């Protein structure tokens, strides 16, 4: 429930009225979806340039890296490519019923991978270091 009821109401699931509510939700969603072309959650280009920062006198490689970012709607029904967690699917349903109280799930990275950077230190020693979680590989609804 959206209002934070702690205890479970034993009679809720047997009430036929809930089943009708769920049906109405599904129908309403189908209509809304067709009229609202907002883009679903997906990966977008975002390039971070060390060269443009004027750092090429100490960073040997790379000149920059494609970091990407995630953006888009996590709206009902969550599409297959949105890598939605079960929780996100349920949260989307609840948001659909109570938009003011429960937000839609977030569009965020679900897989990240690292990059390596080769650079000089102040003494001209050369350092090659791996940095984790720098590049978005996949986005999803959470």
């Amino acid at each position: 429930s959206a209002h934070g009821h702690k205890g479970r109401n034993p009679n809720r699931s047997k009430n036929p009225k809930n089943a009708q509510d769920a049906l109405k939700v599904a129908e309403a969603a189908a209509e809304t979806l067709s009229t609202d072309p907002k883009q679903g959650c997906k990966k977008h280009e975002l390039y971070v340039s060390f060269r443009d920062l004027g750092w090429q006198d100490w960073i040997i490689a790379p000149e920059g890296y494609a970091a990407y970012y995630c953006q888009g709607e996590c709206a009902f029904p969550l599409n297959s490519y949105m890598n939605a967690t079960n929780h996100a699917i349920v949260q989307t349903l609840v948001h659909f019923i109570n938009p003011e109280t429960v937000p839609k799930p977030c569009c965020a990275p679900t897989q990240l991978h690292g990059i390596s950077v080769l650079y000089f230190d102040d003494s001209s020693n050369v350092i090659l270091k791996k940095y984790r979680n720098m590049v978005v590989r996949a986005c999803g609804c959470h």
Partner: protein
Amino acid sequence: NITLDNEVHSSFIQRRLRSQERREMQREILSILGLPHRPRPHIYTKQNAAPMFMLDLYNAISTDGQQPAGFSYYKPVFTTQGPRMVTQQNSIFLNDANMVMSFVNLVELDQDVLSSRHNREFRFDLSRIPEGEAVSAAEFRIYKDYIGEHYENETFHVSVYQVLQEPPDSEEDLFLLDTRVVWAIEEGWLVFDITATSNQWVVNLDQNLGLQLALESMDGQSVNPRLVGLVWGRGPRDKQPFMVAFFKGTEVRLRSVR
């Protein structure tokens, strides 16, 4: 500077940054790279820590860790691959390591510092290693050039020592790390394992008194290393001796309060 995908309206607003904001932004990126400030290497010393060798390592792991088919392996010591290459051993070290560092030889390039036993000295400053990093492997590398017919069939002993003590505090005390037999006519990198020594230096910086290299003929006569083609000092920059260390770190970095 961060360029954006204009296809979709983005929540980033392009605006001119005030200099304070610019500095804050650069400090944030530097903190991700684990750097307290922006390094300012000296232009004339940039070649001294084998950047080309390190670029080979960078290229090796930048192809997602798979070893590219054409990648230049070489047999343990000698090859005709030319001045810089990565061994298969290095690739194994690389996969486990999260950081690799090559160090500038602090003994002046053209200074023929020969110890009392005509050994050649090398020193490396390991004080700049970020905290929490442990040496998983380390090598000392020196290049041997082809020297023509003069010593054609001769072989020599090349030995590398760790300097334990040195004058004026005491008598010179050396610890033999590794010895290699080399043919006079061969050419390529000589690679000596100095992992244990490097770990000791990282833990006790003041015990880092450097290395010494000795060259002897097979009958034990001390020979000037330069005569059999060992390169340092005046030789080409990409053949200068250097040290490379592979590190396995904790990778846990706490972000400071903003």
